[in-house]
């Protein structure tokens, strides 16, 4: 056993009387005197604590530095070392992450289970109390080494640079779309037809109230969650209809029934229903 009572005492002394008893007392390099145990010079603790990525990492360190088999951890020894380390940190008033304490508890539990005589439960074969810990240690270790592998992959600036040459002008213009004359003619035909329709219906058309329109819009919204702003307007209703529809949209916006989005300047405007399922 490496962590003999002497060692513990040593550490305790070191911490308590650090000012009067610097390391120089032990030939300048006290930590080299205890190569196999946990002794860490107090002023190095902070650095070392930062060097560990958590309790699993610390445990791995304890196991690896003593060339122990991860699959057959001497749980008693490791637990003692671990707890000693934790105590040491505690004495240094380090704010220990809770995970370290949880691990200490887990180790203590495994240790006690190892000490207890095996109870042959009926129909249940007892599992090695260390199995879960071993699994977690291995799992952590493979990702620890995966992280090292990733660190060694060629990466920008450190191992290669992406190349570029100067370009005189990066200016580019959007290509205007192709237009077929027939499309224009058809558009004209449509607009004329609509204008005719508008004239003949003008007299019959009843004034549209904003309220009516809101009701109508709400019907539309219920059917479709997303639609274009344009699609709300019916050209046959003429200018007045457009104005009424617009006012209705504004009212609904104010009531937070609708949301309006536009992805880019001058882009298509979309209306989205804000009504949730539950409200219906």
């Amino acid at each position: 056993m490496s962590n003999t009572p002497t060692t513990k005492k040593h550490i305790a002394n070191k911490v308590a009387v650090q000012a009067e008893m610097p390391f120089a007392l032990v030939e300048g390099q006290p930590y080299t005197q205890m190569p196999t145990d946990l002794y860490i010079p107090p002023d190095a603790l902070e650095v070392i604590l930062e060097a560990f990525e958590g309790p699993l990492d610390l445990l791995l360190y304890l196991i690896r530095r003593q060339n122990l088999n991860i699959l057959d951890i001497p749980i008693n020894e490791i637990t003692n070392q671990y707890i000693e380390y934790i105590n040491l940190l505690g004495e240094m008033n380090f704010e220990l992450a809770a995970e370290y304490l949880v691990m200490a508890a887990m180790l203590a539990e495994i240790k006690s289970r190892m000490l207890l005589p095996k109870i042959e439960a009926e129909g249940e074969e007892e599992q090695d109390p260390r199995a879960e810990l071993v699994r977690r240690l291995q799992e952590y270790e493979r990702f620890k080494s995966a992280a090292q592998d990733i660190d060694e992959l060629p990466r920008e600036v450190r191992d290669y640079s992406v190349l570029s040459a100067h370009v005189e002008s990066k200016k580019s213009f959007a290509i205007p779309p192709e237009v077929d004359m027939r499309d224009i003619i058809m558009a004209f035909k449509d607009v004329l037809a609509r204008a005719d329709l508008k004239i003949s219906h003008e007299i019959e058309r009843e004034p549209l109230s904003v309220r009516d329109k809101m009701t109508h819009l709400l019907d539309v919204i219920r059917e479709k969650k997303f639609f274009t702003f344009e699609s709300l307007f019916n050209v046959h209703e003429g200018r007045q209809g457009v104005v009424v529809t617009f006012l209705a949209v504004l009212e609904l916006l104010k009531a937070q029934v609708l949301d309006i989005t536009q992805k880019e300047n001058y882009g298509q405007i979309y209306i989205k229903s804000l009504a949730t399922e539950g409200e219906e």
Partner: protein
Amino acid sequence: METKQIKNIIEAVLLAAGEPVTIKRFKTIFAQSELTHTDIAKALESLADDFHDRGIELKEVASGFRLQTKQNLQPWITKLWEEKPKKYTRALLETIALVAYRQPVTRGEIEEVRGVAVSSYIIRTLMDRDWIRVLGYRDVPGKPAMFGTTKEFLDYFNMKSLQDLPTLAEIKDIETIMPELDLEPKPKEDAFQQQFKNENKSEEE
């Protein structure tokens, strides 16, 4: 160090720097090899020769040397940043149609026939494309601009004059004249859904 190696490093440095590199800066890079100003200048010169049949060239500008793409390749390079043409909206087509047939016409008149407001974006797009122009201003309150089509508009559609535009009578018969042509406006796919599809697609890739 071999000349070949020096040139390789210079080329890589020029392309990695992202800005022009001076001979002085090259000297610090080659500090250990103790290359002189002349050595570097010679290597640069030789490198410039190597590029004569390539797509890039070495150029000395005020702040140093840089590699740049050759001017004659510019048409291909600008295609990198070209946006795909978007189709014109129905509103725009109707607007250009009304300008063509009813010129000189004001925005208000177009709106009156179409029954909806004409967005400034449409007017600007048509002006940017040089298809419409301001012919003058109507002498009524607000002095609205009167629009008409341009020569570029006629050129695009292969017409000599506005007389070549189909007459209204012809338009009414258009379906009988050209039945084989699919003149019905195609059901427009909703732009939003289209975008959605593309997004899904790229995720699948």
